[in-house]
């Protein structure tokens, strides 16, 4: 299995950024940096739109981020029905990377608000799949 291991339902099996999944297995959430011009990308990209290079190296998103916005979804598309309600959000990390994802189910509802400190955590899902969540820092 390759990239299709990422997420609850996958729609993408092949990508130049397949190593994202290998890093998840090591507990790391990573983006890419262009070796030629230094541009930083999250989500990771295999091609640099600034200098056209496809030489990338990986960097881990570490430290604390800040939740920018969120929503608690009460309905879900096909394949996600059993998960509702779940909370989706966007956080900005110390190095400037913004990350979209779900919030950890263990965070009490009353703690969830823009400005909440978060960090990234890799989680195992059913059927040998894996993903990451934003959890309270």
């Amino acid at each position, binding site marked *: 299995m390759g*990239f299709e291991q*990422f*997420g*609850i*339902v*996958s*729609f*993408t099996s092949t*990508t130049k950024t397949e190593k994202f999944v290998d890093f998840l297995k090591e507990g790391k959430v990573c983006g890419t940096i262009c070796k030629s011009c230094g541009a930083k990308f*999250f*989500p990771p990209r295999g091609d640099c739109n600034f200098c056209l290079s496809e030489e990338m190296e990986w960097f881990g998103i570490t430290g604390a981020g800040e939740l*920018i*916005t*969120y*929503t*608690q*979804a*009460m*309905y*879900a*598309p*096909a*394949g*996600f029905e059993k*998960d509702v309600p*779940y909370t*989706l*959000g*966007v956080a900005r990390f110390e190095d400037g*990377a*913004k*990350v*979209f*994802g*779900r919030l950890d189910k263990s965070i009490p509802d009353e703690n969830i608000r*823009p400005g909440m400190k978060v960090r990234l955590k890799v989680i195992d899902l059913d059927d040998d799949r894996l*993903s990451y969540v934003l959890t309270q820092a």
Partner: protein
Amino acid sequence: MPKVGIIAVGQSAFVRSYPGSIRELAFEAFRDALKGLPIRAQQIDASVVCSAPEYDKQRTPAGLIAEYLGLNPQPTFYVESVCSSSSSGLRTAYALIASGLHDVVMVLGFQKMSEISSAESQERMGRGADIQWEAPFGTMMPAYYAMHARGHFEKYGTTEEDLGLIRLKSSTYGVINEKAVFRKSLTLDKIMEPKYIATPLKMMDCCANADGSSCVLLASEQKAKELCEKPVWVRGLGMATAPINMAGRDTFSGLKCAQLAARRAYDMAGLGPKDIDVAEVHDCSTEAEMMAYEDLGFAEPGKGKDLIRNKETYREGRIPVNVDGGLLSKGHPIGATGGSQIRTIALQLRGEAGPMQVPNAKVGLVHNIGGVGIYGNVSIFSVD
């Protein structure tokens, strides 16, 4: 730039489930546009057909629809930018005419959302976002607008009730629009019932699926004057795009693509927000209309809530917005939506909007967004 005019507009009734095929649905708008006019298919030099393909069973619908409307052997092709497809169609038709390539071009938007089962629809819904990096979390359109609502509340102190007031306005006009799918009168209590889709957006903050079609016929200045007593001129066309991925967004309190599209449209028209007499904005959710107030410059950033609290976007207000009920009441048949908005503005500027008429409307604006701020189209029209 050569002048391009709208010479005819039409739309089908928007309904939950159209009892016919897509070619017949397309014909409804075509007939409505040409009814009573001396224009027939053989005078149409080319057509642009617009829909969101994920709802179509028919592959390459442009050819099928051109045949059924009697448009062969003239050119036809398909243009797509999801919910703003037919505004992108307008942009394409304008270019075809302004370039001198064609004199009369039709934009036909349609969507039969009931063409696929609700299970299929549920599956499609999850793929409206970045399928590699976002869809694996379980995303859908209302959740994205909900994150923008939360961003707007946080930054400006907007409330759920402010959004409720937008839906209340919509229902006021949905009741009097015979082409709308949702024609029930609503109370604020009903709107505020805590039936959440994606917090803070509730059931009544979100528009419904619908089947429908729209038709806009455009012509060069000379042809427009020959074929139409009161052409509506295209004055400004602005389009802009923004990252599909939420990680690529700087703010969640407005849509960058709409702000830039508006600036481009105003610049091309040589007009500003204060010159607009009536507007149709893309209210697929109440929050989308709230952001449109500010993105279009009808209110300063953060002051959109004051517009609706003071009823300034009602028919009698300073800047009437969606006085045909908008997408919230009309329904949102994706590919047909932009054309329906353009139709409303053309009728307003010709003084033919019936009970929805804004007195002395001379300049009108259409704001039509594809995806949650991926594609922004803003178009400005006038009768002079």
